[in-house]
Structure formats: C-alpha cells, structure tokens
C-alpha cells in the first residue's frame, strides 16, 4: 500500500508539471491554431532567470516576479516577430516556426546563461511529509496547488472578464469573433502572454524538485504536448487532466512495469487514445465544413 501511495504522489507531482505546460499549449492553440513548440522554453526561462537573479542577490519572490515578466516579454516578442508575420501560413509552416523559436531560445539560453543544472530552494523546506507510509515533498503540494490556482484564475478570467470572453469567442470561431468586433490579433497576443506567464510560474514552482538547465524545455514540451492532445486540445481542464494522467501513467509504469520503457508507456497510451478517441478525453467531435 505505501508503494501505491508513493507512486500516486510522485505521479501527481510530475503530472502537475506536464499539466501546466499542456495548459499553455492549449491556450495558444485555442485562439490561434498554433502549436507552440517553444512552450517548454517558457518553463525554462521561469526557472533559469529566477536562479540567475537570485544568485545575483535578488530576494526570491522578486527574482520570481521578474522571471515571469521576462517570460511574458519573450512570449510577446515571439508572437510579434515570428507568429504574426506567418499568421496565415499552413499548420506545418507554423510548427516549423515554433520549433525554430524553441531552438533559438535554447541556443540563447545556452550562450547567455550556462550549460549547468541549477536548483532553487524549496519554498516550505525540504523535509518530506509522511502520509500513509509515503513521503511527499511540501514542494509537490505547492506545485499541485499552484496548478489548481492557475486553472481557477484562468477559469475566472475566461468566464468573468471581457477579455477572457473575447478569447473564448476567438477560440470558438475566429471569423465570427472578428465580425462582432473583437480584435483577434490582440487576443492571440494575450494568449501568448498568458501562456508564457503560466509556463514561467510552472518553471519556478517545479525547479526546486526537478532542477532546471538551458535545455529542459524540449522534453517538457513533448510530454506537455502529448498531454494536451490526450486531454483534447482546446480545453484547459482537459489539459490539466491530460497532464496528470500522463504523469500517473509514467510513474505507475516505471514502478510496476519497466522503467526503461517509461516514456514509451505514456506515448503508447496517447496513441491508443488518438485512435479510439481522436478528440481527446474532453473534446467534442469537430465537424469539418466543406
């Protein structure tokens, strides 16, 4: 029993990381049909910039806030310089653009920062809490609550504010949104900014557990992307569910089955879901207009 609980906690922790990345993917995709492969880099920026600033002497909360600002700035630049100009391009073109952006950001980080791994001090100390024989890190609880708070704030934003409703409208039907006077270009810009912020927050929260370095972005982006697909791309709640599910599958797979094929388990399940339920767990069947 303690093993099961341990796998559960670890899986949820890892899953929360994927969930935050997946939410970022979903947000941008909903409003602009762009799959942003550079999403993982926002997480990296959150962790690395915070570390660099804290190492230079800034108090941790200030460093964290500045890191989020930097990430948002990068997100806006990305949108302005790379996505906007290629706006009406095909899906493949946009994928290449974001992959190129991901490579570029990674290269800049490698040159600007360094190639080592770094950590941040855990927010509530490093002593694990024992629950039912399993040891859970306080930071894991912070990550999970953080993910929960992010989703809550996002939901409030989407449903209770004008801008949020504009985003929902744009996601539902871009042309109709333009016709009712919504500046869809600004909506897309906003989605990039929010995704970047979410990614950065995720990076700051998880670095005390999983460490950060200039190239953590790639694998996170892949898993987060898969999680977003699993949940049904276009649904923030689905993204969270997808992320948690991928994390749990991975951890239980590593614990009970084989740790060498841990990553394989996650991707196999995703492939299975794609064949059986292409719209993902929470998506609705899309009707293609001729």
């Amino acid at each position, binding site marked *: 029993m*303690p*093993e099961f609980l*341990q*796998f559960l*906690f*670890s*899986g949820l*922790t*890892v899953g929360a*990381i994927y969930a935050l990345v997946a939410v970022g993917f979903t947000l941008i995709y909903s409003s602009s049909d762009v799959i942003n492969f550079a999403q993982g880099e926002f997480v990296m920026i959150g962790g690395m910039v915070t570390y660099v600033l804290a190492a230079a002497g800034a108090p941790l909360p200030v460093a964290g806030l500045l890191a989020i600002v930097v990430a948002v700035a990068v997100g806006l630049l990305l949108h302005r310089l790379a996505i906007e100009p290629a706006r009406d391009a095909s899906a493949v073109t946009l994928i290449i653009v974001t992959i190129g952006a991901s490579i570029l950001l990674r290269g800049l980080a*490698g040159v600007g920062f*360094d*190639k*080592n*791994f*770094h*950590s941040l001090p855990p927010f509530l100390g*490093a002593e*694990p809490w024992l629950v039912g024989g399993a*040891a859970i*890190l306080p930071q894991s609880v912070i990550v999970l609550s953080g993910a929960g708070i992010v989703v809550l704030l996002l939901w409030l934003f989407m449903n209770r504010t004008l801008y949020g409703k504009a985003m929902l409208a744009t996601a539902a039907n871009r042309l109709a949104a333009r016709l009712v006077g919504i500046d869809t270009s600004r909506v897309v810009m906003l989605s990039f900014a929010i995704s970047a912020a979410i990614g950065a927050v995720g990076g700051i929260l*998880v670095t005390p*557990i*999983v*460490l950060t*370095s200039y190239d*953590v972005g790639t*694998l996170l982006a892949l898993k987060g992307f898969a999680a977003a697909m699993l949940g049904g791309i276009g649904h923030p709640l689905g993204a969270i569910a997808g992320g948690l599910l991928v994390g749990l599958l991975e*951890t*239980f797979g*590593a*614990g009970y089955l084989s*740790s*060498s094929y*841990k*990553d394989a388990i996650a991707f196999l399940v995703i492939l299975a879901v794609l064949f059986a339920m292409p719209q993902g767990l929470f998506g609705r069947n899309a009707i293609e207009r001729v």
Partner: protein
Amino acid sequence: MAGTAIGRVIASALGLATIMAAGDVLADVKIGAVLSVTGPASFLGDPEKKTLEMYAADINAKGGINGQPIKLVIYDDGSDPNQARTFAIRLIEEDKVDALLAGSTTATTMPIITLAEENQIPLINFAGAVQAVFPAKKWNFKTPHTDLMACEKIFEDVKKRNLTKVALISGADAFGKSMRDQCMTITGKYGLEVLHEESYQPRDSDMTAQLTNIKSKAGVQAVINPGFGQGPAIVTRNYRQLGITVPLYHGHGIGTKQFIELATPAAAEGVRLPAAALLVADKLPANDSQRKVVVDYKQTYESKTGQPVSTFGGHMYDGLMILAEAMQRAKSFDKAKVRDEIEKTRGFIGTGGVVNMTPTDHLGLDLTAFRMLEIKNGDWTLAQ
C-alpha cells in the same frame, strides 16, 4: 657598393625567400579537438573546451611548444557521433592537424579512434568506457579513469564495510549503462550479490518510483547509482525523501561540487563516490604528490570561468599537458615520434592521478588514482 636598384631588388627577394623558407620551420603546431560542447553531453564538453582554450593560451604565453605557438582548431559535434566523425575527418584532411584531443563521450570517440588508426595520427580521448582504451591501439590514448575502475573502487569500499547485498539504479544514458555493465561483470570478484536493479531515463525528473521498489526489497545493504549529469542529484534527493538509510554510492560521472548543491547538502550527507583528487584539492595532505597540480588547476579554472572546477575539464588538462610534454621530449611534431613519446609518459602528475603508460596500457592509471570521497557537511572529504 650594393646600391643599384637591381641589387636592392635581389636582396629583398632573397630576404623574402629566406623568410618564406623559414616560415615552414616556423609553422604553428596545430592541435585539433572534437568535443561535445552542446547537446546532452555538454556537461562534459563545455569544461573540456574551456580548459583547452585556457591552457593552450597559457602555454603560448610561455613560448609555446618547442618554441612554436599552438594553433587550436575546436569543433563541436553536438553529442552526435556522425558529426564527430565528419569533424574528425575535417581536422585530419582539411586542417591537417598534428594531433587530436578528441571525443567527449564513448559514442563520439569510437569512430575517431578508427580514424586515428587509419590516418596514423596521435589521439588522446576523453571517453569514459573501458573499451575506449583497452585493448590498447597504437595511436589511441586516454586520460579519464575507466568505468570499470570506478566499479572496482566502489566494490572495494563496499566490501571493506562488510556489505554483500546491493541494489543498482542506473541511468539509461551511455555513461550510466556502460558503467552498470562493467559493474555486473565483477560482482563475483568482490563477493557481492545484486538483489535488484532499476533504471531511469537521462532526463527524468523523478526517481521515487524506482527507489520505492528498491526500498521495499528486503535485505538490500547498499545502493549504487551509475549515471552522470543531473540524474544522480535527483536520485540523491529522492533517496532522502523516501528515508532510505543504507549507504548510497555514485559513479564518477558527478564531476563537480555543484552536485552537492543540486542534491542538497542534507540529502548528500554520507554519500560516497570514487573521484579524482581534483575534487578534494584543498584537503589533500601537504605531501600528496598531486596536491600542487590539482590546487593550481582548480584555482585557475575557477577564477577564469567563475564556475566550480570539473573533473572533465581536468581530464582535458591532463591530455593537453601529456601531449605538450611528449612533443617537447620528441623535440618535433612528427606524428610517429610524438606518439612514441606519449607512450613513454612516466610519472606524469595530472589532475586524474599519476600516469605511467606502457605499450599495452595507454591509460596509465591504477586504482590509487581514484580517491574514495564522502560528502560531509556539504563538502567533499576523503573517506576514511
């Protein structure tokens, strides 16, 4: 009086010709390097590159080798063996280097070894695996300790503590896997029994699942973690998180003091690993033969790069110095003569140990070159 115009022209022409002829003799010595400065192995290649540039400049400032300045040609293979091979060919055929200091990982090194043998050019490599230097090939040499040696040093210590039943958790990267394979070949020699094995992917962020399985296996007396990069740091953190109390050993892929910060000093307390004396430079007794070399290197590297010293950079230091000294003993840059002198390296004190090469041993280190370190109070100490 040689004042005629013709006379002056002839004189300058002769002067120019002499300078040009002497130019051949005054040619730089070209040293080529193919390192994994970017990619998954940048942890290895980056300090190697920095060390090479730093110390080549230092040698040049002191007059170069045999009076000639060193010209470095460094290529980055991005941890890709195909690229490594292409760049090595470029160094040999295009840049026409005199010697190679190349190969950060075993995968990138193996094709370069083949090229060195085919083209008869001396090579000093920085791979970890035992097959990168045994059986000895004519033109190939190596400075880092082998993974087999790391296993032996660990098992020696485990046995000394009267422990016989161990569990292994290894990184699935080449470094970790190779060391794990070597360890499995010598368990019998030290009377050890492996009760359980787990592995993790190189970029994994959480190993609690695997460690939970190890924890619940009855009778495990020690855990060994072959791996490199950030994996061992996370394993160490998870180890403490799960409250596992039996001794934990890591391999020599740790490389820098940063590991202790990453693993957190509290979690790393009591962890042991075999490492070069470089990591405990300041704590070596005054009469230790390596003390001066490692302290100098550590201070130079840390002050010039602002980063903690790395054993991987240390291996490059050893390689460059062995090569430079061999060239000086040979009083020439002829590839065959330099190769012979490298093979005659005896009593060379490097960051990795004291090197004594022979025609069948192109590594020249024995188990005493490894020190068993223990982490205490957030710092390396020599284990008692």
